[in-house]
């Protein structure tokens, strides 16, 4: 058994030698591919989740103004999920987009074309840039999140997604909407987390150390975006379920792209190989790779390879299609970050 060797990737998936707890055998196959890590009952978990989700949807839909809020980024996965929610599960959906200031203009067109084609109401929230930019910098340059979390997502993406999650939860509680949908795929989330009750109080307790660090770095405005007011919580009788419908269908990337192109969806050119909507992703990946030694998409892409949903060659192309420091200049300028600050990481 060999252990970590510099510049080595698993010969079956694309996990690199810097990935935590990775070990390679004599054929260069990692312990993740050999099923030594992660529970192996994924298909059973999906099957259980499907049964429970269908029951929940049938019991709760059609009772209010909307059945579900869709966290809609305009990327390929959330576009496909929005279509699924309407056309396969017959849900009345309110789409919610967080404009972080870095969405590709093509992504905005995709969002508008999709909601128009599907007949969906859309709410867009743009966090104040005097909060969001410091949040991005704090996430990029400080150790905010659990290293475990960073095996599957970059710190900056995690901060942005946390804002989206809380905004969706606030809206769901205010409008008494029973479901929150997101476009996560298997690999981005574990199979036994395809759906869960969004018990804010319980989760918030575990997030407090993170919030404390963020408050110290960027001030108490963190609470406006990462917390829910006591008055809203006091009027809450039940929390919504978060559901990732895409995990139940488990389509390949080609199937997703073929389907959403019928809605007029176009792949943006100004994003990196792992994103289909956000220009900031290239910066996030660059910083993450520099800090952690591996691309934050390796876990997800490797999982897709193991499930036969993506070829290793295509996955390698995605992680190879990353920005260098020169091509990041427009983003650095928008963030007010100097090249030297990154080089010092």
């Amino acid at each position, binding site marked *: 058994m060999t252990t970590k060797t510099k510049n080595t990737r698993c010969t079956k998936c694309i996990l690199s030698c810097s990935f935590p707890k990775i070990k390679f055998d004599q054929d260069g196959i990692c312990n993740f591919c050999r099923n030594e890590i992660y*529970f192996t009952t994924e298909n059973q978990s999906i099957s259980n989740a499907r049964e429970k989700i269908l029951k929940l949807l049938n019991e709760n839909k059609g009772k209010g103004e909307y059945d579900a809020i869709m966290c809609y980024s305009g990327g390929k996965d959330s576009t496909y999920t929005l279509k699924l929610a309407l056309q396969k599960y017959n849900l009345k959906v309110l789409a919610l987009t967080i404009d972080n200031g870095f969405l590709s203009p093509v992504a905005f067109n995709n969002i508008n074309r999709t909601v128009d084609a599907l007949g969906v109401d859309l709410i867009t929230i743009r966090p104040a840039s005097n909060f969001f930019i410091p949040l991005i910098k704090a996430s990029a340059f400080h150790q905010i999140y*659990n290293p475990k979390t960073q095996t599957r997502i970059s710190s900056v993406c995690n901060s942005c997604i946390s804002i989206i999650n809380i905004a969706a939860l606030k809206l769901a509680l205010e409008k008494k909407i029973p479901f929150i949908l997101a476009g996560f795929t298997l690999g981005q989330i*574990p199979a*036994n*987390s395809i759906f*869960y009750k969004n018990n804010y109080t*319980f989760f918030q307790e575990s997030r407090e150390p993170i919030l404390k660090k963020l408050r110290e770095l960027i001030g108490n405005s963190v609470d406006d975006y990462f917390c829910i007011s006591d008055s809203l919580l006091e009027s809450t009788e*039940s929390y919504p379920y978060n559901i990732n419908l895409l995990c139940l269908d488990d389509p390949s990337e080609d199937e997703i792209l073929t389907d959403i192109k019928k809605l007029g969806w176009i792949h943006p050119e100004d994003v990196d190989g792992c994103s289909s909507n956000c220009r900031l992703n290239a910066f996030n990946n660059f910083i993450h790779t520099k800090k952690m030694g591996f691309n934050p998409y390796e876990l997800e892409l490797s999982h897709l390879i193991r499930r036969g949903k993506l070829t290793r060659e295509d996955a390698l192309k995605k992680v190879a299609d990353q920005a260098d420091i020169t091509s990041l200049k427009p983003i650095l300028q928008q963030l007010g970050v100097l090249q030297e600050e990154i080089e010092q990481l």
Partner: protein
Amino acid sequence: MAEEIQNKLLDFITRSFMVEKEEIDLDKSMIDEGIIDSFGLIEIATFLEDEFQIKITEDKMIRANFGSVTKIVNFIEREQGK
């Protein structure tokens, strides 16, 4: 009984969260120790429901029940005894 529950739980935790058994302090919070994040709590709760055939309602999702491996094992024992 408690030992069997603990073994199943530790088996799940070690295989799901890239951690060795020796790294887990049974009486400390796995979040505070950096073993899991809040998503890990969802994973564990779902695993417990499926593996031990119990229903974890919102009022039971508290630190007193999920704050450590020992607390989780005690919680499962109480739920199974009902």
